[in-house]
C-alpha cells in the first residue's frame, strides 16, 4: 500500500483499522501478544486521526464516499472542525488507555480472556470513532450499537473484582438499548419525513419543507435516545455503577470518551440536522435542557460529595460536568457552544487522568474508598501528585485546563444574560472544591496506615500506567497555557454550526 493511498483513505481506515485489528486481536492466544498488537493498532489509528486533524486544521473539510457511491445513495463520512476534535480525542484516549491498562488488566481479568478483552476494546474504540466520523444518520445507529454492545461487555468484565459489575452492565444494557431504540425510531421518522438518511441532506430537505408533527416527534425521540447515552440528568442512573465497577482501564476510557461522543451526536442533531432556531427547539433549550443541566451540576455534585467510593465520586462528578456541557449547548449561541466543546475536550483530559490515578492507587494499595487513600502523598507520591493536579483542573483552578473551560462558560452565560447559570456554575465549583479537596486532604494531611515496623511503606508504581497518567496530567496544564488547538476547533465548529444555519 503506497503511502499516498493510505493518506487518501485515512478517513475510512481510522475506523477500519481498529475494527479489523480487534477481530485479529481476539484470535491471538497470548495476552502479551494481543496487547502489543492492540497497542500497534491504536497507534496506527491515532496517527490516522492526526492525518485527518492536520487536514482540517489546514482549512480543508474532508469527505469520503464509502464504496465510492455518491451521497445520498451511499454512506458519506464527513470530517470538519467539530468531529475531528472527537476523533482525535477518542483515538488518543484509546491509545493511552491501552498503554495504561496492561498491569491493571493482569489483576482484574483472567489471563485466558485477555485476547478477547483487548479485541473487544479495539472494537469499542472503532465504534466511537465511527459514530463521530459518519455523516449518515443510520450509520450513526450502527456504530452506536458497535460501541455500546462492546461497552456493556467491557463493563461486565469487572466481575472478577466485584460481582456488581454484572448488574451495572445489565442496567447499562437495558437503558442503553432503550436509548438506541428511541434514537432509531427518531431516525426512522426522519426518513419518513425526508426520504433520506444523509444528515446534511435531511437538514437540507427539512429547511425546504419545514417541520411537521413527524419531525417534532423525531426530534423528541432522538433527544431522549441520545440523552440516555449522554447520561443527561435525569437519564444518568446507569452511569455511576458502570464507571465504578468496570475494569479500571475501561473506566478511564469510558469516562473520557463515551458520553462525549453521544453529546457530540446531540450537538450534531440539534444544531445541524434540526437547524437551531426552530421554535420547538429553542423552547426545548430554554425550558428543558438548561434547567436539567443546572440541576445536574448541583444535584450530582452534592451526590459526589457524599460518596465514599472514589470511582463513584468521580462518576457522579462526571454527570455534573456533563451538565456544564449541556448548559453551554443549550445557550444556543456561538460562545456557549464553543465553551461546551472546550469543556468536552478538557473534561476528557481531567477525568481520564483522575480515573488513571485512582486505578494506579488501586493497583498498588487496593484503594477503593477515599478513607483508604490516607497518606497516599507519602506512599505513592507521583500518583498522588498527578491525582491532585487533575483534581485542581476539575475544580477549575487557574494554571489548569479546567479554568479555561469554566472561564469561557461563565463569559458565555453572562453574554446570554443567564445570571442564574453563573450562580449555578459557582455553586457547583464550590462543591467540586469540597469533594476534590476531601481527596487531597486525605492524601496529604493524613498519615499513611502504619505497618508493623512502624515505617510508612512507599509503593513502586508500574511505569507504563504512570507514563499514561502523566501524559494526561501534562496535557491538563499544557492546554491552559496553549489552548489554541481545542479553542480554535471549537470556535470554528460553533461558527459553522450556528452561522451556517445548519446547511
Amino acid at each position, binding site marked *: *500500500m503506497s503511502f499516498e*493511498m493510505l493518506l487518501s*483513505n485515512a478517513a*475510512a*481506515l481510522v475506523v*477500519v483499522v481498529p*475494527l*479489523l485489528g480487534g*477481530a*485479529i486481536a*481476539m*484470535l491471538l492466544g497470548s495476552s502479551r501478544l494481543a496487547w502489543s498488537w492492540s497497542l500497534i493498532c491504536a497507534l496506527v489509528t491515532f496517527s490516522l486521526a492526526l492525518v485527518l486533524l492536520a487536514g482540517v486544521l489546514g482549512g480543508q473539510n474532508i469527505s*469520503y*464516499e*464509502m*464504496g*465510492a*457511491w455518491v451521497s*445520498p*445513495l*451511499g*454512506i458519506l463520512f464527513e470530517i470538519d472542525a467539530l468531529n475531528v476534535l472527537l476523533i482525535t480525542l477518542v483515538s488518543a484516549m484509546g491509545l493511552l488507555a491501552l498503554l495504561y491498562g496492561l498491569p491493571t488488566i493482569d489483576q482484574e481479568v483472567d489471563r485466558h*480472556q485477555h485476547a*478477547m*478483552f483487548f*479485541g*473487544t476494546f479495539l*472494537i469499542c474504540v*472503532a465504534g466511537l470513532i*465511527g459514530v463521530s466520523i459518519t455523516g*449518515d444518520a*443510520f*450509520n450513526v445507529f*450502527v*456504530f452506536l*450499537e*458497535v460501541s455500546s*454492545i*462492546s461497552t*456493556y*461487555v467491557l463493563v*461486565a*468484565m469487572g*466481575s472478577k473484582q466485584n460481582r456488581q459489575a*454484572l448488574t451495572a452492565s445489565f442496567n447499562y444494557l437495558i437503558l442503553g438499548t432503550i436509548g438506541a431504540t428511541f434514537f432509531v*425510531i427518531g431516525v426512522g*421518522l426522519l*426518513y*419518513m419525513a*425526508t*426520504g*433520506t*438518511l444523509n444528515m446534511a441532506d435531511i437538514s437540507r*430537505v427539512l429547511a425546504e419543507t419545514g417541520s*411537521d*408533527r*413527524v419531525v*417534532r*416527534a423525531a426530534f423528541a*425521540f432522538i433527544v431522549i435516545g441520545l440523552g440516555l447515552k449522554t447520561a443527561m440528568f435525569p437519564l444518568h442512573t446507569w452511569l455511576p455503577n458502570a464507571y465504578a465497577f468496570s475494569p479500571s482501564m475501561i473506566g478511564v476510557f469510558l469516562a473520557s470518551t463515551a458520553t462525549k461522543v453521544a453529546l457530540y451526536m446531540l450537538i450534531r442533531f440539534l444544531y445541524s440536522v434540526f437547524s437551531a432556531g426552530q421554535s420547538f427547539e429553542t423552547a426545548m433549550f430554554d425550558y428543558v435542557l438548561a434547567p436539567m443541566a443546572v440541576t445536574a451540576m448541583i444535584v450530582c455534585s452534592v451526590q459526589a460529595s457524599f460518596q465514599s467510593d472514589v470511582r463513584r465520586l468521580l462518576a457522579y462528578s462526571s454527570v455534573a460536568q456533563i451538565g456544564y456541557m449541556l448548559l453551554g449547548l443549550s445557550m444556543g449561541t456561538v460562545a456557549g457552544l464553543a465553551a461546551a466543546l472546550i469543556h468536552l475536550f478538557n473534561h476528557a483530559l481531567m477525568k481520564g487522568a483522575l480515573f488513571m490515578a485512582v486505578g494506579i492507587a488501586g493497583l498498588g494499595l487496593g484503594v477503593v474508598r477515599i478513607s483508604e487513600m490516607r497518606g497516599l502523598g507519602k506512599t505513592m507520591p507521583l500518583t498522588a501528585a498527578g491525582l491532585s493536579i487533575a483534581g485542581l483542573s476539575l475544580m477549575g483552578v487557574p494554571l489548569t485546563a479546567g479554568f479555561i473551560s469554566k472561564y469561557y462558560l461563565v463569559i458565555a452565560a453572562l453574554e446570554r444574560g443567564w445570571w442564574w447559570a453563573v450562580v449555578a456554575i459557582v455553586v457547583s465549583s464550590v462543591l467540586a472544591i469540597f469533594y476534590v479537596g476531601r481527596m487531597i486532604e486525605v492524601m496529604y494531611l493524613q498519615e499513611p496506615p502504619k505497618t508493623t515496623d512502624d515505617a510508612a511503606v512507599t509503593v513502586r508504581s508500574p511505569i507504563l500506567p504512570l507514563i499514561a497518567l502523566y501524559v494526561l496530567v501534562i496535557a491538563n496544564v499544557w492546554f491552559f497555557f496553549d489552548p489554541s488547538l481545542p479553542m480554535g476547533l471549537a470556535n470554528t465548529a460553533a461558527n459553522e454550526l450556528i452561522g451556517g444555519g445548519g446547511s
Partner: protein
Amino acid sequence: MEMSFPIDIFVIIDLILISMLLVVGIAIVRLNNLFVIVMLYGVYSLLAATWFVSLDAVDVAFTEAAVGAGISTVLMLGAMLLTSRESKPTTPIRRWTSLLIVLVTGIALIYATFDMPAFGDPNSPANSYVGLMYLKATITDISVPNVVTAILASYRGFDTFGEVVVVLTAGLGVMLILGIDSRRSRSGEVENKDAIAKEANTKNKPEKINALNHHIVLQVVAKMLIPIIILYALYVHFHGDYGPGGGFQAGVIFASAIILYSLIFGMDQTRRAIPPKLVQFGSALGVLIYGGTGIITILMGGKFLDYNMLDQNDTIHAQHMGILMIEVGVLVTVASVMLSIYYGFAGRYRQLKDQNW
C-alpha cells in the same frame, strides 16, 4: 378498476395481523411464566414476519422468521433454563411508572401519525426520493433483481459491515462472560447436580445424558432433516441476489441445523464435530473477509468497499463478485456467533431433560 371490495383485502389482513400482535404483546406483559413468554415471543415474531410479507418486505420477513421465531426462541429458552421459570413480581410504583413512560411514548408516536403520509402513498418522501433512486440505479449499477440486496450489500455495504461487527461483538460478549469452552458448572447449580446424579442412576448412561438420544424417532428424523436444512441455507445464501435471503439468513439457518443436531445428539458430540475454537475463529474470520474485501478494493486504487475495482472492465461483474465475497463474510460470522452463543448457554448446564423443554 375491478375491485369488488370497498376496502382493499390486504388492508383487512394487515389490520387483523396488527390486532393479533397487540393481543400477544399485552399477553406477554401480563404473564409471569417465562416459558410461556418465550413461546409467545416466537408467536409474536412469526406474526410480525407474516405482516412484513403482506407489506412486501419479504427480506425483513425472512430475517424476522429465522431470527425472531427461530433461533432466538432457542437461545431464550437456554437462558431461561439457567435462571428461572417465573418472573419476580415488581413493585406497584415501578409498574405504574413503566406504564406512564409507555403511555407518553405511545402518545408521541400517535401524535406523529397525524402528519404521516398516507399508507402506500407513492409521493411520500420515502417512496419518491432516495428509495426511488435505488430502484432506478440498481439496474444499471449492479444489475441484481433483488434491490434490497443491492442496497444492503453495496450501496450501504458499510452499514452491513458495521452490523456484522455488532454480531461479532455480541458473540465476544457471550464468549467473555459465559465462555464457550466451559464444562465446569458453577456453584449456583446445585440442584442441577442432584438431577444429574438422579438421571445417571436411572439411565445408567451418564456420558449421553445431555441429549434426547433415547428418542429414536427424533434421531432418525433429525438425521434426515439436517442435510436438507444445510442445503437450504446454501440456497438462501446464493439466491440472495435474486430473491429474499442472503448471508445473514443463511447463517442463522445453518446454525439452526447444528443446534438441532446438538439438541438431539448432545453437546459433547457437537463439540467434537465443531470445536469451540473453530467457532471462535469463524466469528472473527467473517468480519475479516468482509473488511478484507474493502482493504482489497483500497489496494486496487479505489475506496473502501468500492467493488467496481475488482474488475474494471466489467463493473457489473465486479459488483456481483464483491457482493458474493462480503455475503460469505456475513454467513461465516453470523453462523459462528449464533453457535458461540448457543455453546455459551448450553455449556452451562450438564443435561437437558425432556421436561426442561
